[in-house]
């Protein structure tokens, strides 16, 4: 059942990799220098985390694929990231909201993974959790600043929340991979993160004067390799050099 563990590690690595790539696209385009710095620093942390997860995934798989092979030489259908992280950057409020919804879940996930029965998973999670705590502190503050800002910024943030909400639920569903990993004590069971995540989100939305969406029903499939149309475009950019010049190094 190393396969399930490999799949699970890909999910962790791909979430970090894809979101890092999205945030990196803001480099030089942030609405203010401070925001530009923040997004690219968060992107850098996530890239470091992606490297650790994907390196371990490659070792667990045992077919000689390293972090680079996994990042640059898989096609969209082989990616296991959540749909949320591949959603386009949109306007700045969309990027901030996507980050907050993800950070709030990520920290609960990493806290659970920090107790993993696999020492390698535990140490990567503990290392990452320290970084994600700071990401969350910032993204929560930005959601509040923009939500509880002007009537225009509030309206736009409410729109971002409504638009991203359907993509921010699939992570609470268990499939065979999740169930197996939870049974082995490798990872927390996916549904157990729902209540603490919702509590975190409610606190911040109340401060941000934003209404929690009452939308029920959601999009799913990212973790199984069924993605939105946006992932292919993102990978075309991420993987360009290795696709055009296979084996290129510098």
């Amino acid at each position, binding site marked *: 059942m190393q396969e399930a563990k490999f799949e699970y590690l890909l999910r962790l690595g791909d979430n970090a990799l894809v979101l890092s790539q999205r945030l990196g696209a803001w480099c030089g385009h942030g609405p203010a220098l*401070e925001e530009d*710095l923040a997004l690219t620093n968060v992107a850098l942390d996530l890239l*470091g985390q992606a490297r650790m997860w994907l390196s371990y995934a490659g070792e667990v798989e045992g077919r000689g694929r390293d972090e680079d092979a996994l990042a640059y030489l898989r096609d969209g259908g082989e990616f296991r990231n959540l749909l949320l992280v591949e959603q386009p950057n949109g306007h700045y409020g969309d990027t901030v909201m996507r980050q907050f919804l993800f950070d709030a879940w990520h920290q609960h996930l990493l806290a659970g993974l*920090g107790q993993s029965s696999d020492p390698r998973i535990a140490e990567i999670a503990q*290392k990452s*959790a*320290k970084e994600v705590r700071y990401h969350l*502190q910032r993204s929560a503050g930005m959601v*509040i600043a923009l939500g509880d800002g002007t009537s225009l910024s509030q309206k736009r943030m409410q729109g971002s929340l409504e638009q991203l909400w359907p993509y921010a639920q699939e992570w609470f569903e268990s499939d065979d991979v999740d169930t197996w990993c939870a049974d082995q004590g490798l990872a927390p069971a996916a549904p157990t993160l729902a209540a603490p995540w919702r509590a975190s989100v409610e606190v911040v939305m109340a*401060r941000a004067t934003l209404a929690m969406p009452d939308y029920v029903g959601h999009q799913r499939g990212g973790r199984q390799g069924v993605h939105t149309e946006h992932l292919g475009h993102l990978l075309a950019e991420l993987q360009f050099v290795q696709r055009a010049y296979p084996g290129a190094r510098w």
Partner: protein
Amino acid sequence: MSLAATTRPSRDQLLAWLDSVMDPEVPVVSVVGLGIVRDIVWHDAQGGQNDAGMGTLQVIVTPTYSGCPATEVIALSIRVALQSHGVDAVEVTTQLSPAWTTDWMTETAREALRQYGIAPPAGPAAGLADGSQVIDIASLLHAGHQPAVPCPQCGSTRTRLLSQFGSTACKALYRCNSCLEPFDYFKPH
């Protein structure tokens, strides 16, 4: 290879040499002062051509931030520094756990940072150390939970956060309201 090089240097000597290897981003703090050198271990000679009878020295380092681009430069600088003192076979390995914390930074390093114009971490990173506890988001957002960061130029505590991220992953940007100078702050982590 000189004869002297076949004797293993003492641990104190090795650490003193490592203490001359500076962080490439903060060139007044050494890798030892920063607390990222976790251990040094000798491994017996395997008969390789580089070990000169000394064996291989394993230097165990831990990354500050997982995406810190300085990590690879640091590993290279460590090898170069030790090789310049005749320790030819050096292996730099990374250890993640326990996760690095700014609490491991020495007093000397903190003072060197201050002199250089970077405010050292105000207060311990304690409680964040293993990262396993979930933060209470309400308390996180509560104003005033952050310790005052004294200005490294004039010492005033009337300072203000300008940007949560600064010139490198480990720093934030502040400004002093007394002397009006902006400065980097090494975040507790």
